[in-house]
C-alpha cells in the first residue's frame, strides 16, 4: 500500500526544518564574525545555512498547506507505522550505547541484536517470544558479535571495548 503521508505531518516536517534553521541562526549569533583579510568570517556560512534552511522550512510548510508535497514518490510500505517495532530497535541501540563500555562489545551487541530481531520478527507478524526463538536469537547475536569483535580487535587492531582486558570477551 503506497499512500502519501498526511498534510499535517508534511507541515510538521516543514516546521521542524524551519526550527532547525532558526536554531542554527540562534547559534550563529555567538560565533565571532572576524573575517581577517577576507570578507567572510567563521560565522558567514552558519548564517547562510540558517537563512536557507529557515526559508526551505517555510516553503515546505507552504507546500504542505497548499495541497501537499510536489513531485513526491509515494513512500514504500504500509500507510501507518508499526511503532512497537521502532521501540524494540531503539531500545536495542540505546541499551547498547549505555552498556557497551561496561559489558563489552560482544554482550552489548548481542543484546542489541536480540532486541532488534525481536522487533523485526514481530513487525513481520512472527511469534518471537517463545523461549526457543529467544534462545536462538541470543545465540546468533553472540555468534555474530564475537567473530566481528575478534576480527576487528585482533586482526585490524581497532579499539573496541571488552568485558575483560584479554581482548577475547
Amino acid at each position, binding site marked *: 500500500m503506497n499512500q502519501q503521508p498526511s498534510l499535517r505531518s508534511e507541515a510538521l516536517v516543514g516546521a521542524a526544518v524551519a526550527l532547525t534553521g532558526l536554531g542554527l541562526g540562534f547559534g550563529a549569533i555567538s560565533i565571532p564574525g572576524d573575517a581577517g583579510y*577576507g570578507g567572510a568570517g567563521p560565522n558567514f*556560512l552558519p548564517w547562510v545555512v540558517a537563512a536557507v*534552511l529557515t526559508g526551505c522550512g517555510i516553503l515546505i510548510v507552504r*507546500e504542505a498547506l497548499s495541497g501537499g508535497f510536489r513531485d513526491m514518490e509515494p513512500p514504500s510500505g504500509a500507510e501507518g*507505522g508499526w511503532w512497537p517495532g521502532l521501540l524494540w530497535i*531503539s531500545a536495542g541501540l540505546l541499551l547498547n*550505547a549505555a552498556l557497551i563500555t561496561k559489558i563489552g562489545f560482544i554482550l552489548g551487541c548481542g543484546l542489541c541484536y536480540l532486541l532488534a530481531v525481536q522487533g523485526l520478527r514481530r513487525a*513481520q507478524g512472527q511469534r518471537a517470544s517463545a523461549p526457543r526463538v529467544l534462545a536462538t536469537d541470543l545465540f546468533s547475536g553472540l555468534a555474530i558479535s564475537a567473530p566481528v569483535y575478534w576480527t576487528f580487535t585482533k586482526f*585490524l587492531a*581497532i579499539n573496541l571495548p571488552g568485558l575483560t582486558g584479554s581482548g577475547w570477551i
Partner: protein
Amino acid sequence: MDIFASLLQGFATAISPVNLLWAFVGCVLGTAVGVLPGIGPAVAVAMLLPITAKVDITASMIFFAGIYYGAMYGGSTTSILLNTPGETASMVTAMEGNKMAKSGRAGQALATAAIGSFVAGTIATVFVTLFAPTVAEFAVKLGPPEYFLLMALAFTTVSAVLGQSTLRGMTSLFLGLALGLVGMDQISGQARYTGGVPELLDGVEIVLVAVGLFAVAEVLYFALYEGKTVETQNTMSRVYMSKRDWARSVPAWFRATFIGAPFGCIPAGGTEIPTFLSYAVEKKLAKGKDKEEFGTSGAIEGVAGPEAANNATVTTALIPLLTLGIPTSNTTAILLGAFQNYGIQPGPQLFTTSASLVWALIASLYIGNVMLLILNLPLVKVWVQLLKIPKPQLYAGILIFATVGAYGMRQSAFDLVLLWAIGLVGVVMRRFDFPTAPVVVGMILGPLAEAQLRNAVSIGEGSARVFFERPMSLALIAVIVAVLALPRLYRFVQARRQGGTMLPHGGVEP
C-alpha cells in the same frame, strides 16, 4: 614519467600478495553488499572506515574500491532476481531484468549484466588511466574561486537536478552543510555548534551520518512500515548466453559505456541519467521482435545497456574524486572521507605527491574487474543463496556492523546515541521523499567549499567580484545557471506548446 610506466608501477604494487588479498576481500564483500538488500557500498565503506586507523593507505583504498565496484556487480543480481530493486543504479536493470527472469531467462540477464559490467568497467578504467592525469594537470591551474564554484556545481546538481523536488533536495543539502559546520572551523579554529560537548569539537563523523542515514534508518523503516511487505523471488536458470544474446548484447555494452563514462567525469554525479538514457537508446534502436520484448517478456539489451552504463559511470566518477577532490555520489564522498582520515586531500597534487597510491588504485581496478567477473559468473548461484537470509536476522546483524563503524572511529558511546538519532532523521527523510545523497555530499564537501570560498574572497580583498573576473570561474557560473535554468525553461516551453500554464512547482496545469 609517462602514463604506461606509472601504470606498470601501479600493477607492481597492486599485485603484491597483501594488496591482492585486500582487493579480493573487497570484491567479495562488495558483491555480497550489492546482493544483500538494505546495505549499499556507501554504508559498507563507512562501516569499515575505522580500519583506516591501522591499515596502510594503499591497501585500504584498494579494499574500499573493491567494495565500491563489487557492489555494482552484486546489485544486478538482486535487481534481476528480486522484485524490489535495491538502489537507484539498478532500477533500470530491474525493469527489463525482472521481466526476463519471469519469462525463465534469469541466467541470460545475469550473464549479460556481469559481462557488460566487466566490459564497461574495464573500458572506463582505461578512460581513468588516460584522462585522470590530464585532468590533474589542468586542475593545478585552478584557484580557490574555481574550486568553490566546482563544488557549488556539485551541490547544485546533486540537490536541485537529480532528485524529484528541488526544494527537498536543497533542504537535504543544507542539512548536510549544517552537519559539516559542527566542530572547529578549519581557518580560524573557532568552535561552532558544539554545545559544550567535547566530542563534537572534532565534528560529526561521516561514518555516523552515512551509517545512520542508510543502515540504521533502513532497519527502523523496515520495522515501522515494511514488516508485512511480501517479496517474491524469481527462479534462477542456467547462466549462459546464446549467439543471438551475444549479438544483441555486445553493441549495447559499447554504446552504454560511451554514454555512461562522460557522466562519471563531470561533477554532476548520479547513475540515474546515464542508465535511463542507455535504456531509452536501446529501446529506440531495437527493431521488430526485439523491440516487442521491451516491457513484455524482457529485452536483453535493456539489461546489457543500463548495467554497462552504470558501471562506466561509477568507474569514471573516480576522475573528479582523484583529480579535483570532488565526490559525485554517496560512496565517492565516503571514499574522500577515507583519504581525509589519512590526512590526504585528493586533488591535482595527488598524482605527484601520492603517485604510487593513485596508480596502484587504478591498477587494482583492472585486477578487480577480472576478479569480479569470475566471482559473478560461475559463482552466481552462491550469491543467490544470500537472498535466503531472513530479513529480521539480516537487519539485526547490520546493526552489529553499524556499531563497529560508529564506535570504532572515536571509541565514544555518545556516538552510538547520535547514530540512533540520525537513523530516526533518515526514517523521516525516506518517508517524506527527501534525498539522502545531498546530506552526505554537503557534509563532506561543505567545510572544503567554505574554506575555498573564504580563500577566494580573501584573494579578492573582500570582494565577490573575484568570481566574475576569471574566465574559468565565469564559465562555471554560466554552467551552474544553465543547470538550474534549462530544465525549468524546457518545462516552460513544453507547457506553452501544450497551451497550459506552468505551476510554481514545475508541474503543468492544462
